[in-house]
């Protein structure tokens, strides 16, 4: 059974269509990257998944209606938006007390154990913590919850590279297992591509790519074309073309590598390159 199932999910704000007949299935035990430019509909989709906004179409998360069964859902789903959402007036120990008081699947000792590995003091007020520490605190709280789905919306926004690396390392080492599913939205695709099992691109409210990471190398190929083979390569129908240091780089979909190899250097595109290509080009 899918952890998240979207069928023709649509959300309109007046005349503006934020989500346009989105179809998406997320299976258990996957780490899915939801990537898109600003205004693409990522947050709207996450709001729908978390029951924070109503959508048309059929949307089910862990077999529940996110809007109608929100309380039940939030016992099994954790959510980290960005560092600004932890209440600044609260002390760290108060935050632990609060989650312990309201969440039946929260393990207080586990949370304190995670916090003990950081420099965060239990008596500190959250507003006195650095951005990185706030994220560490939020992650410690979330990792101590026995959740089936973790939704991360730009979780490392504004953090320096050390905290960003530590965040994803902790997430993989301390939290993730085959029973859990993680859905991440981020702009910093290079940092998460090594942990993703699935990649979803969204553009103007539509899903333009939904593929397993293993499949991307098989489907998409990047070619740094020799100047004499330019026209021959173009004839194979690249989905994107750009000039890099005086050479033409083309991206192909479903073109065998053997056919491209004589025309230049062939390689698997990075997620960032694929993202740029698909955002500028046509729908995949």
């Amino acid at each position, binding site marked *: 059974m899918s952890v998240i199932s979207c069928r023709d999910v649509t959300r309109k704000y007046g005349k503006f269509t934020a989500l346009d007949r989105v179809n998406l299935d997320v299976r258990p035990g996957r780490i899915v990257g939801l990537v898109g430019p600003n205004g693409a509909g990522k947050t709207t989709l996450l709001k729908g998944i*978390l029951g*924070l906004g109503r959508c048309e179409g059929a949307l089910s998360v862990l077999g529940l209606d996110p809007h109608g069964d929100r309380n039940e859902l939030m016992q099994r789903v954790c959510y980290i*938006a960005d560092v600004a*959402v932890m*209440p*600044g007036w609260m002390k760290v120990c108060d935050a632990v007390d*609060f989650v*312990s008081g*309201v969440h039946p699947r929260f393990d207080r000792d586990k949370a304190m154990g995670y916090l003990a590995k950081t420099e965060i003091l239990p008596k500190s007020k959250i507003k006195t913590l650095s951005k990185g520490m706030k994220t560490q605190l*939020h992650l410690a709280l979330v990792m101590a919850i026995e959740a089936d789905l973790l939704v991360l919306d730009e979780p490392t926004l504004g953090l320096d590279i050390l905290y960003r690396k530590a965040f994803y390392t902790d997430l993989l080492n301390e939290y993730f297992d085959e029973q859990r599913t993680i859905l991440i939205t981020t702009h910093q695709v290079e940092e998460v591509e090594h942990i993703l099992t699935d990649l979803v691109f969204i553009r103007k409210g539509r899903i333009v790519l939904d593929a397993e990471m293993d499949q991307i190398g098989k489907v998409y190929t990047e070619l740094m074309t020799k100047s004499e083979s330019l026209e021959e390569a173009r004839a194979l129908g690249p989905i994107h073309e750009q000039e890099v240091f005086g050479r033409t780089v083309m991206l192909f979909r479903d073109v065998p590598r053997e056919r491209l190899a004589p025309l230049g250097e062939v390689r698997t595109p990075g997620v960032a390159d694929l993202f740029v290509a698909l955002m500028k080009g046509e729908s995949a």
Partner: protein
Amino acid sequence: MKTFKALLLREHREHRGVYIAPLVFCALILLAAAVALFVPGRLQTSIMHDQDGVIQFHNDSGRHLFEVNDISLRSLATLFENLPQQTQGVAINGMLHGVAGTLLPIALVLAIALAAQSLFRERKDRSVLFWRSMPVSDTQTVLSKLVYIVVVFPLLFLECIAVTQISLLLLYSIAGLFFGLNPMTIWGPAEVLLCWWDLAHLALALQIFYLPVIAYAMMMSALSRRNPLLMILLTPALLLLGERLIWGGDTLLNLLLRYVQQGPQLVMGTGMQMTGDSMTIRYGAPLAEVMNGGMLIGLLVAGVFIAAAIQIRRHSESA
């Protein structure tokens, strides 16, 4: 129940700062009392003496009780010790209720201010995303805020009043000791527990009476994008203006004024009873007053506002 307790505790921790106001007032009252005690009473004399330099005390039926012609602390202590026990009781309990009477309106204003921020602040600092990531319904959240404002906060406020009253009694006892006044003369007639019982009763009655205002403030707090206090004031002002401009009447205004004025009447109208020789100070039955006076309509109106606040929070996408 565990969730609701955690939510109430959260409210209490969030609003620790709100207790600064009553504590400051309490400290001011104590300071004023200390100054009045230890600085000889020239000011009191000039204010209270009649033309012959004698202060006369009468009960409400005009019967002469006692008079003071020397306002030094020693003479006041002696005078107090020689007063009939019932009169001592009136003086001491009058002081206790006076402190409460000064502070209770502040509690009400603070309760409305809390309500005005209750569902706005979480959106302003975006912590609503954190709260809503927990398995807590909007109904539980809004009701916990309401219960905190209407029940927990006034009780904690009464604690401040109680501490001030006890401190005042201690202050008077210490001052009295310097002039040979037996502290039991002060503590004996003080009906402290009775006073607290009455105050809790009264505070609850006032909160119930003004529940529609608090609920309205919470609804506006959920609705407001920038300044909930402005919306709270501006909306009825526009309604009143609209009524006057369109229908040329003031029915709404009169209704509103009558409602607002009835609260203080609840305190003063049935308030301190110093009848004849009995000289006891008791409030009437404010809860019964509230129950009799259109309480159901008030509760219904409050219920509509609270239901609206829950729905607004639930459907708000500012998260």
